[in-house]
């Protein structure tokens, strides 16, 4: 069926000065749990939403220079891998699972974690490191990914994300 009408233009919501803000708390340091926050955060930026990522506890590995490139995907304690629990701890299995996941991500053109952070920074996202996690691990700003905006405490984060939609991963 064909209907002729005036030029239809997508709105892109440009006329609405949206103050939509998304804050994602990244608390996990395994490779599989690093991605959800990065993917959703990146999607938010692509939709013109202000983004703040807060890295805390194990999630600190995602922004620690010495660790961010070596995140592991382990089948241990992860029933979603459908590997029998007794076999999951076998030597070499985590390494194999990790490289398989990395390969799968690469095929889907999803970048490794450090490059993903580059993308988020270039898109205007903000990266915050948790003060307590930094102190626990004896890490300073120079030990962290260069794009980290600052090391802040929990109150700073709460203050900064007033009115934001919040996601804990």
């Amino acid at each position, binding site marked *: 069926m*064909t*209907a*002729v*009408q*005036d*030029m*239809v*233009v*997508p709105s*892109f919501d*440009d006329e609405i000065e949206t103050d939509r803000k998304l804050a994602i708390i990244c608390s996990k340091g395994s490779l599989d749990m690093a991605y959800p926050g990065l*993917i959703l955060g*990146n*999607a938010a930026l*692509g*939709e*013109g939403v202000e983004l703040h990522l807060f890295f805390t506890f194990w999630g600190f590995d995602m922004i620690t220079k010495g660790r961010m490139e070596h995140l592991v995907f382990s089948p241990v304690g992860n029933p979603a891998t459908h590997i029998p629990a007794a076999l999951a701890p076998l030597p070499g299995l985590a390494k194999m699972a990790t490289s398989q996941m990395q390969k799968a991500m690469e095929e*889907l*053109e*999803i*970048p490794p974690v450090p490059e*993903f952070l580059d*993308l988020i920074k*270039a*898109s*205007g996202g903000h990266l915050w490191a948790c003060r307590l996690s930094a102190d626990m691990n004896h890490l300073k700003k120079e030990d962290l990914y260069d794009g980290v905006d600052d090391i802040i405490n929990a109150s700073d984060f709460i203050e900064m994300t007033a009115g934001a939609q919040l996601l804990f991963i």
Partner: protein
Amino acid sequence: MPTTTINGRDVTVDDEGFMTVYDEWDEETGKSLAAAIGIDMTDEHWKVVRFLREDFKAQGATPTIRRVSTAGGVDTKQLFTLFPKKPAKKMAYIAGLPKPAGCV
């Protein structure tokens, strides 16, 4: 599929206004689409839009922001400057292509 009139020519679009027939697009049309969403096309804009057109033809899918920067050589920061707020959708719209389907 509805049609819409751009520069006095009927083109096929989806419900949102994205063009759906690759060969109905030409650069004059692209210029009008850009104007309709408030974008004045510069050489840099054209570099992106031409890459999108070529890449779609070769790959069969609209490239994502990341692909435009890795394969098309226009960095992400600049894409946000050229096509403010929603670069992936805006550049696809101007290039007469569907919105990118990929997540990243």
